[in-house]
């Protein structure tokens, strides 16, 4: 099915993610905060809430509201991004809300809002996934009641080969069928809360890609878990 002797530009194996790391508690003012790094992509997230929702007419008397913002720093990319919201950042903000809401127990907070703010400090593809990974940790860190964690990764197809965690270079791949980019977010128990696709792929290979994403998300979950556990030192001192 998938050609196995495909060579990735940075020499990684097809199912090998870029080096990744996570840290929790990086913004003192926030109720919860985290950093997630994947290769050269760095995302930070801060959570404020639950708190009173303004304006009052936006309040939902049945359950709390999750509000996400996603923003890329002007100097996170080579070609400077003019500061301020864009259509892309607005779309990703919505997608992030949809990726995280299914695990949050918002019915405990009627009329309240939980604000999640994501900022991309350095971008090398996979920014929305890094943002979701950071946001999930930040929400847990803030003590928001959650059924489980959410992990996110971009899988893709380069010409005819399924790979995981596309770098920017790979996103610009031009040979054969070109690149297909598939960002996916899933809960630890395997439910998919976010799913996008750009490119060209048949359903059989798509299933292969999803399986690869599942495996990678399990690895990401371990790092998210460790980051949350490491931020508490049961022998004294704390982040």
């Amino acid at each position, binding site marked *: 099915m998938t050609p196995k002797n495909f060579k990735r530009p940075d020499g990684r194996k097809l199912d090998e993610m870029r080096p990744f790391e996570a840290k929790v508690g990086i913004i003192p003012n926030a109720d919860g905060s985290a950093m997630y790094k994947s290769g050269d992509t760095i995302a930070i997230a801060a959570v404020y809430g639950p708190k009173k929702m303004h304006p009052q007419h936006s309040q939902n008397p049945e359950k709390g509201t999750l509000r996400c913002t996603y923003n890329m720093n002007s100097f996170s990319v080579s070609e400077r991004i003019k500061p301020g919201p864009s259509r892309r950042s607005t779309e990703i903000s919505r997608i992030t809300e949809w990726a995280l809401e299914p695990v949050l127990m918002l019915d405990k907070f009627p009329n309240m809002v939980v604000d999640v703010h994501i900022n991309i400090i350095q971008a090398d593809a996979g920014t929305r996934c890094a943002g979701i990974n950071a946001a999930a940790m930040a929400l847990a860190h*803030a*003590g928001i*009641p*959650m*059924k489980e964690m959410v992990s996110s990764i971009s899988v893709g197809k380069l010409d005819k080969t399924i790979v995981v965690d596309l770098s920017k270079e790979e996103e610009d791949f031009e040979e054969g069928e070109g690149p297909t980019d598939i960002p996916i977010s899933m809960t630890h128990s395997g439910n998919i809360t976010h799913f996008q696709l750009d490119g060209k792929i048949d359903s059989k290979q798509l299933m292969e890609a999803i399986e690869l994403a599942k495996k990678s998300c399990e690895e990401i979950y371990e790092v998210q878990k460790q980051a*949350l556990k490491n931020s*508490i030192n049961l022998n004294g001192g704390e982040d």
Partner: protein
Amino acid sequence: MSETEHRRTVVIPGETIVEGDAYLPGEGTEKQGNKIVALRYGLSEESGKLVKVIPLSGVYQPRRGNIVIGKCSLITFNGWVIDIGVAENAFLPIMETPKFVAKDRLDEVMKIGDLAVVQIMGVNGRGIDVTIKSRGLGKIDEGFVFKINSNKVPRVIGKEGSMIKIIRDYTKCNITVGQNGFIWIKGDKIEDELFAKKAIEFITENSFIDGLTEKVEEWFKKNGGVKRE
């Protein structure tokens, strides 16, 4: 492992704490099949068969009987609206003051912007009802007020007030700890007040270690504290 043994580990949402039909799901957990699963980030604690998660973070949940510190945000015709740092405001009705107050003299008890120590009488659909009838409650006249993580309040107070007593003994300050995380310190000298604040910060930074009470006494002695007899 004995049944009454307490075990504490940091758990994250969705993590299985224990497996076994006999276990019961306490606060912050849920039973899924024969597993007790954490529904929030915190410290898991088992007492006997009951398994719960002690929160390390998260918003303060107002409870009847709690003493909290808030700010007067509005004066109505029959009472004061008090902001205690949660989504619902608290309300102090005119009947819940220790002495009679005339309807046109409400601002003598408390003005907008004043801080006060209040006690929660009830939490219901309409809001939070508070009182200042008992001793130690009422407007904060001087000193300073700062905030800590409300989840650390039990450690600052200590078992039956043992921790707060140590701080008072060594700093000679009056200290009121609100369950909502706001703390009021009032002493004769500002240095004493800041010493008490530093001690509280030490406690919040080391809230998980065993023998914290002894460590705090050591900290005081090391930092030049003199115990008031």
